[in-house]
């Protein structure tokens, strides 16, 4: 269906090629996963397949691209539109219409389909993606999962045989993500569509895909099966466990790993419950947030102790962000109070709050605005009235030393987050609020963020982190709060909330079935 011959790609102004001499083939009806570190050429690879690279991204392309037996090297995206459907990371940013129906027919209109044919195809694709009952809805009313379905449907409406998706589940909670991945599998295996998916969170798709493409940082690309994950560092816990215990062949599915574990369970150490302070750092009482007619948060009360990491979990739209912003004081708060050592943050000025608590928003890069790392760090010192370079000390303790001349936008997502943490903590805030910090981070970056958070905890900071990333939460949290439609429905120790029998167990607890065993780091490696 698709063949790439000796394809190389480089962006202008960089020496390192994003992709170098790539030879790949994809069969009709193949479901393929493309993975690689953040900043590797995996998105570029996807964009080459429909002409967005180089026509929209810039850069230079060599080699040839054959789709459906035809050499289409150098074609523009609209010339490939009838063959290839493309779905972006954020569907809402690519919608062109007001209602679902208009959005679905948009592509067919551009390709000049007759009305009758459009009606037929519209029905067909709506049925395929199970969105028949949404056709007359405005796009802005849809949930994240529904939006993603509409985006996929509109990419396939004109009968495209190839579907490309760039991190389609990154903004979705686990349930919605699992549904979308199931839909993709049936598109490939029952309807013969070639589905190529770029995804960071391998565990969400790994059991369903036919092949794996790995894009290395030097631009080399390999395609094959699961065996590629041996000695690969960006893997989910299930594969990590397989490697640690030297299972052969490598195990990627939770159910296969379960069997292996039952045959020869590994040894493990219990969770170390470091002594928790009894002192309350933050006391949230009856917090409510309502926007016009919608109650986003209703009467939420909880405490966070000194030196404790608390995770706030829940589906998209359950009110996690609203809770964080309402606590911080910059967001809307309808009723309720937050008690800290220095009073309620709502009553403090923006600058005073930074001495008490600090919030890192979903798009951490919004907080950066100068042209070099050095400028950001020294501006921060000046703002905090520090004479020594306190900000760089925090930053270096988080990530190590980096070239001070580098532009903050050129840092990796993980390094940007560390920089923002340093800037936000320099005034000595004891309470840290994090909103979905793992979005867009690969496994390695997530692990290093978890380490940073644990280090801050050791210094006595209290952390409240909103996330629906179960594995990440298991690495950092002492306690887990769960929100459902704005209400606090559970408040448990991490071992209970993420362990055996919980509603969202970690992969390791699913595999081992051992209470108190949550993360890979607890399992002791077996030498080969």
């Amino acid at each position, binding site marked *: 269906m698709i063949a790439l011959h000796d394809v190389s790609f480089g962006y202008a102004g960089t020496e390192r090629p994003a992709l170098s001499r790539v030879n790949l083939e994809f069969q009709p009806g193949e479901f393929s996963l493309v993975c690689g570190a953040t900043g590797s050429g995996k998105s570029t690879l996807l964009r080459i397949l429909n002409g967005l690279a180089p026509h929209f991204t810039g850069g230079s392309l060599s080699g040839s691209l054959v789709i459906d037996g035809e050499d289409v090297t150098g074609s523009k995206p609209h010339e490939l539109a009838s063959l290839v459907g493309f779905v972006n990371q954020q569907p809402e940013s690519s919608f062109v219409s007001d209602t679902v129906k208009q959005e679905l027919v948009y592509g067919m209109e551009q390709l000049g389909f007759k009305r009758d044919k459009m009606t037929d195809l519209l029905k067909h694709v709506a049925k395929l993606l199970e969105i028949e009952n949404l056709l007359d809805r405005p796009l802005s009313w849809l949930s994240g999962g529904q939006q993603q379905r509409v985006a996929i449907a509109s990419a396939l409406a004109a009968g495209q045989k190839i579907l490309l998706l760039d991190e389609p589940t990154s903004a979705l909670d686990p349930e919605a993500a699992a549904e979308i991945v199931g839909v993709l599998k049936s598109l490939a295996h029952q309807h013969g569509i070639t589905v190529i998916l770029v995804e960071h969170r391998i565990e969400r798709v790994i059991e369903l895909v036919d092949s794996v493409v790995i894009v290395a940082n030097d631009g080399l690309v390999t395609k094959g099966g699961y065996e590629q994950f041996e000695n690969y560092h960006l893997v989910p816990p299930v594969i990590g466990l397989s490697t640690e215990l030297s299972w052969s062949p490598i195990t990627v599915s939770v159910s296969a790993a379960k069997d292996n574990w039952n045959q020869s369970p590994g040894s493990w150490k219990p969770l170390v419950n470091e002594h928790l302070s009894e002192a309350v750092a933050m006391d949230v009482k009856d917090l409510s947030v309502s926007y016009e007619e919608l109650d986003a948060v209703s009467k939420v009360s909880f405490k966070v102790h000194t030196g404790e990491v608390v995770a706030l979990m829940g589906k998209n739209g359950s009110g996690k962000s609203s809770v964080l912003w309402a606590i911080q004081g910059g967001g809307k708060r309808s009723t309720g109070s937050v008690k800290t050592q220095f009073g309620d943050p709502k009553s403090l000025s923006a600058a005073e709050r930074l001495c008490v608590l600090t919030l890192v928003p979903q798009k951490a890069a*919004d907080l950066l605005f100068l042209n070099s790392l050095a400028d950001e760090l020294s501006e921060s010192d000046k703002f905090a009235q520090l004479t020594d370079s306190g900000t760089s000390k925090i930053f270096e303790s988080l990530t190590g030393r980096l070239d001070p001349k580098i532009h903050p936008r050129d840092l990796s997502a993980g390094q940007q987050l560390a920089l923002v943490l340093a800037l936000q903590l320099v005034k000595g805030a004891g309470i840290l609020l994090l909103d979905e910090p793992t979005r867009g981070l690969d496994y390695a970056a997530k692990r290093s963020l978890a380490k940073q958070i644990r280090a801050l905890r050791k210094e006595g900071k209290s952390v409240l982190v909103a996330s629906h990333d179960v594995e990440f939460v298991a690495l950092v949290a002492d306690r887990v709060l769960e929100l459902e439609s704005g209400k606090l429905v559970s408040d448990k120790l991490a071992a209970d909330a993420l362990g055996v029998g919980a509603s969202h167990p970690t992969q390791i607890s699913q595999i081992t079935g051992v209470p108190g065993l949550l993360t890979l780091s607890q399992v002791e490696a077996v030498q080969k």
Partner: protein
Amino acid sequence: MAKRFTASAASPLSWWLLAITMAVVAGVSQSALTQILVCSASLIAILMFREEAPWSRSVKFYLFLAGFVVIARVLFRIAFNIQNPEDTTALNLPGFSINLGFGPPVELFGAVSVEALSSGATDGLRLAAIILSIGMASSLANPRTLLKSTPSALYEIASAISVAINLAPQMISSLQRVRKARSLRGRSKGLGSMAGTVIPVLEDAIDSSLSLAASMDSRGFGRRGNLSKSLVLAARLSSLMAVGFLSVGSFALLVGQTQTLGWVFIAIGIFATFASIRINSKSQIRTRFEPVKLQFFDALILSLSALLLIAAILGWFE
């Protein structure tokens, strides 16, 4: 109670046409009354018809810009003051004379006449009226729907247009997010902090506009059939003529010295536009699932625009 009309009851093209007509009226008119009428009509339309949408949050920005232009114009008149002995003096400020080392010395301030003040205010009001009428269109017209109705004749610049049309509303929502983020760093939300917000806001707005354009292109926007080489050349020439004559024509009208020539140029420009669209649509393959129907509200807006345009040509506003 009858259903209230909101902005989306009419096509975005109608809003833009009305806005352009109002801007033309404001441009040709010499009377302050007309300018004030145009300003208030724009504001009333925004307040009456706007919907809860990201692009309708830009009103404050346009109002600020309009106010700034009026004040700047008047201040300019006071500072760079050309005195005419026949005028009545309104303000008697001490005059300065600055010698720049070349040319005659520059006279600043001095006795400011009523006439200078009022002509400064009228000039400022004219620009303000144009700004507000464009502001009306961009607050009321859904940029995405407008983009969808872009004739494929304009394809050669369509990607650029799609980025541009989407940029202003996108910038406003980016601005709101970045300001919120900045307040997290304890920085003020005031105007002084604008410098720091420009980079992230622009970057964000351009990124998202580009991603929209990329998505449209991926779905076939810009597809066309084949045209012979000579037709392609003719289409390009007529597009070029259209843009050229329309700009020179509007300039002539705004400057006000050569009204007839201005109208002639605009007429040629409009003719060239139609020619270009006509030739290009031969290569058009785009179809419509639901044919665009002229709504009652559209008809109302379009006839209002036509009336305004005729009145402007007949010189009622001068």
